[in-house]
């Protein structure tokens, strides 16, 4: 804001400095004026619901890697989360826990614990040596557990709680005649604790705003850390929570800025966009190898990575305009992707790559990750691509197709029908189809310039592809035109704000206060759509830390047949504080 007020680029700003005292006075005046002209304050809002959500697999693994080091990376696969309002992060708030999941958690915890106490790891992961390895050593056990348990529980633990862990470690060590196995049993137990696996947010009265509630310090620290780093809080953030600094404006800003400046921000931003772009679908993406022989399993992995690298480079390294993600020709190339793009791979690994100005590749829509992910195994799909554009990039909802769709028209065997545009023309002729397809097909057909593997093409079955279309009234003739239309669509930054806020707060956008999102969007625009600034604004917003009691779903258990009495209604969730240590 200050830079904009001063006007001009960096060179001109430098010159102004040289103008001396007069300029300084002007700057002082300008600062005062800006103070008076500051934008609207964050509007009042209800805040977000105090939620209980499941730690995702990546959050769990990132946390373990932070606490015990990156070498401790157990192979595991947690159960898939439901996608709610475009985000798995929101789905984590309604996910259940089955016996099978618990078994997975237990296996994972066992692997982690075994690796920590292994002979290779113990010298640097356990800060002391026991007096004897075949017996309990309460002092050494306490030293270790007092260090790691708070990081895993994401909060300070009482002396009594640590002592209970130590007692359990001693008991196991005595029974197993092995100090390290004793520790391993306790670590395994901690990693399976509901307080570790579930993020149960706790609220407290907000002393600055009587009658309102806010997240307590620990919950705020966790929400911040999962948002920006996709991992549990680090020791410094927990210390800020413990001291109460996190509940002060200055202390919160200091921690948020520290987190934004950390290299761990990249992990957080990658996780956010991996979720936003529904990239978990890559786990089950397969292409017909007889049709797309160059598309291998490695291609799918690299396609996902290419887009995430581009996002990180564009948003964090270059701090460029978020909207330009949809038109940028700068990306990264790997040997597995180069054959799909029909370009040379410069190295055995990833190398920066820029498509030339006249190239049809411009922006994320032209990445293999978008075109191949939203296609069928053996052919492209204007409808899937149009739907994804609406839902993923614009946060719109396309209704599900009716159950009685006649797919025979799509699979028209008529040899004279050469292109997808001809094949799906009936969509727009049939009134029952046209309602939805009108919002998908016009932009999906322009993406027919890419086959089902994401390779650019001019023709389909020997017939030139008509790539013209329109997006919300903006006409274009080719895929680059679509990319520009999308880039300039006001819904794009709005969608980014909505998804990012929902991701950060862990609650579906439906529950978010629209006025807050509008405020954040205006700020985002005012800051030139620099994404880290949006992250900062969200993290520092009152709406981020202000919470309210969620509406509890009432359950009606089956009547007790023996007594034939109707049981009383019970809430499905207990107060979160009940399960805290």
């Amino acid at each position, binding site marked *: *804001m*200050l*830079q904009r*007020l*001063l006007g001009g*680029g*960096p060179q001109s*700003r*430098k010159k102004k*400095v040289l103008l001396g005292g007069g300029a300084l006075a002007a*700057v*002082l005046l*300008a*600062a*005062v*004026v*800006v*103070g008076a*002209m*500051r*934008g609207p304050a964050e509007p009042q809002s209800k805040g977000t619901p105090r939620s209980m959500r499941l730690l995702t697999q990546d959050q769990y693994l990132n946390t373990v890697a932070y606490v015990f080091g990156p070498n401790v990376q157990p192979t595991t696969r947690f159960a898939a989360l439901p996608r709610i309002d475009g985000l798995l992060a929101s789905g984590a708030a309604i996910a259940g826990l089955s016996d099978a999941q618990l078994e997975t958690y237990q296996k994972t915890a066992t692997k982690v614990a075994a690796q920590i106490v292994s002979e290779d790891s113990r010298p640097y992961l356990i800060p002391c040596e026991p007096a004897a390895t075949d017996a309990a050593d309460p002092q050494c056990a306490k030293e270790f557990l007092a260090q790691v348990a708070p990081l895993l529980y994401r909060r300070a633990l009482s002396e009594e709680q640590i002592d209970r862990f130590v007692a359990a470690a001693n008991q196991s060590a005595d029974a197993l005649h092995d100090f390290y196995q004793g520790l391993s049993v306790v670590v395994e137990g901690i990693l399976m604790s509901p307080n570790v696996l579930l993020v149960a947010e706790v609220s407290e009265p907000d002393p600055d705003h009587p009658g309102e509630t806010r997240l307590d310090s620990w919950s705020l620290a966790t929400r911040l850390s999962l948002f920006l780093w996709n991992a549990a809080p680090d020791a410094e953030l927990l210390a800020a929570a413990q001291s109460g600094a996190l509940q002060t404006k200055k202390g919160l800003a200091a921690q948020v*800025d520290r987190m*934004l*400046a950390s290299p761990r921000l990249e992990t957080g931003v990658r996780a956010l966009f991996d979720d936003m772009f529904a990239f978990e679908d890559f786990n089950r993406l397969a292409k017909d*190898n*007889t049709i797309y*022989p*160059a598309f*291998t399993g490695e291609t799918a992995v690299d396609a996902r990575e290419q887009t995430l690298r581009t996002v990180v*480079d564009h948003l*964090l*390294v*270059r*701090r*460029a305009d978020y909207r330009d993600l949809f038109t940028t*020709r700068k990306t990264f190339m790997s*040997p597995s992707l*180069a*054959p799909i793009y*029909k*370009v*040379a*791979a*410069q190295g*055995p690994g990833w*190398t*920066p*790559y*820029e*498509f*030339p100005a*006249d*190239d*049809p590749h411009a922006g994320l829509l032209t990445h293999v990750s978008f075109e191949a992910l939203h296609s069928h195994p053996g052919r492209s799909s204007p409808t899937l691509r149009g739907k994804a554009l609406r839902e993923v990039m614009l946060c719109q909802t396309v209704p599900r197709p009716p159950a009685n769709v006649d797919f025979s028209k799509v699979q028209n065997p008529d040899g004279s029908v050469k292109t997808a545009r001809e094949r799906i023309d009936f969509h727009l002729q049939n009134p029952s189809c046209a309602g939805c397809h009108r919002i998908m097909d016009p932009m999906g057909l322009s993406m027919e310039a890419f086959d089902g593997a994401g390779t*650019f093409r*001019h023709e389909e079955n020997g017939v030139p592809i008509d790539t013209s279309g329109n997006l919300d009234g903006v006409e274009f003739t080719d895929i680059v035109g679509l990319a520009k239309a999308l880039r300039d669509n006001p819904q794009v930054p709005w969608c980014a704000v909505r998804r990012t806020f929902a991701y950060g707060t862990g609650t579906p956008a439906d529950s978010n206060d629209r006025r807050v999102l509008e405020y954040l969007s205006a700020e985002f625009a005012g800051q030139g759509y*620099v994404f*880290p*600034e949006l992250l*900062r604004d969200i993290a520092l917003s009152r709406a981020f830390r202000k919470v309210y009691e969620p509406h509890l779903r009432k359950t009606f258990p089956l009547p007790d047949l023996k007594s034939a009495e109707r049981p009383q209604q019970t809430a499905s969730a207990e107060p979160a504080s009940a399960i805290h240590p």
Partner: protein
Amino acid sequence: MMNNVNDRQSRSVPKRAALGLTALAWLPLLLGGSVTAAEPAAAPATKSAAKAADGKDWAPPGGRIGYVLWDEVSWGLRETPNKEECPNGFNIGPREQFAEEFPKDGKKRTLAETQLKREAAIWDPDTTPDEFPFHEATGKYAIGVNLDGKDTPEDFESDDGRKGIDNQLFRVVGCVRNYRKEGELGIITTKWRAQKPFNRVTFELTGVDSLKNDPDVTVSYYRTLDTLLAGPTGNYLPGGSQRVDTRWGKRFIISAKGRIVDGVLETEPFKEILVPEDGMGDPAINIFRSAQLRLKLTPESAEGVLAGFIDVEQWYYAMNTAWATHHAAYGQASAASIYKALRRLADGYPDPKTGQNTAISGALDMKLTQVYVIHPESAPPLSAAR
């Protein structure tokens, strides 16, 4: 606004001047701080070009196209269904020769008189007359190139009517089971060629105005570094990239002029083409002197022969080190007999002192697939097949 991402201070500066005069403390940084993004060096752009439909003329972008060797079909063997080229049948191998030389007749023989004698004949071969009959491949036709420009009685004719084909190596190995389709060398050599980076070699054509007809192109040969682009069914796909090995592969680099006629490339002689061959971990280099290429070209692949006068000693060394005893036994390839035939039929590069030929004409029958050739410190090749 393009701020340096490392300039974390500027990110943490409050955005609004309304935060008060404290913001002024950051002013010098804001005004004088770097605003140049720490951008990684982007690779120069590639240019798109339309690929011709099959049968139509096409010029690779920038007049440049590379082909990497992935399949060695054979050592220039022209095999007929009725084995007409081997009227006397196939040669016997080391097991049969051993049994013949040392029959189970009750006679006592020492290890040195038997196994070590045979071993010595392999590793210290000579040109004395073979104790066993050796069946050379015969006939009118062979695969290859007229290397010396002459048409002599020992030369062959190609299937497409070219006279004076020099391929004496065909006579040597044409009736040895190992080298024929019945043998296993073709399959395994191709596997090794594809899988072992040591064996990676690439040709690059430059100055190509037409892949159909161009009287003047330059063909360069490189040792390259990268794995092949594998398809889902064990084949190798066009569109991969190969980086030229300029560190250890300098001695392999060589160029020659060529011409394309009706989609077939023919080159002037390369002085010497070195073909690396690592089979079982004991690498060797085959040397093709006065080498010529004859390749049928498409935008996706090339197929044909690398012909030349092949250094006999190097070829023999490569055979013995690349292949294990069991390959020779099952493939009925007697090294000692093959050596004598090689020396007997060698037809090029006479030793100045002895006058004996040191090289034998032959051809490597091969398949190549299109790649982008990456030259270090140079502009990347242009996009093809777009």
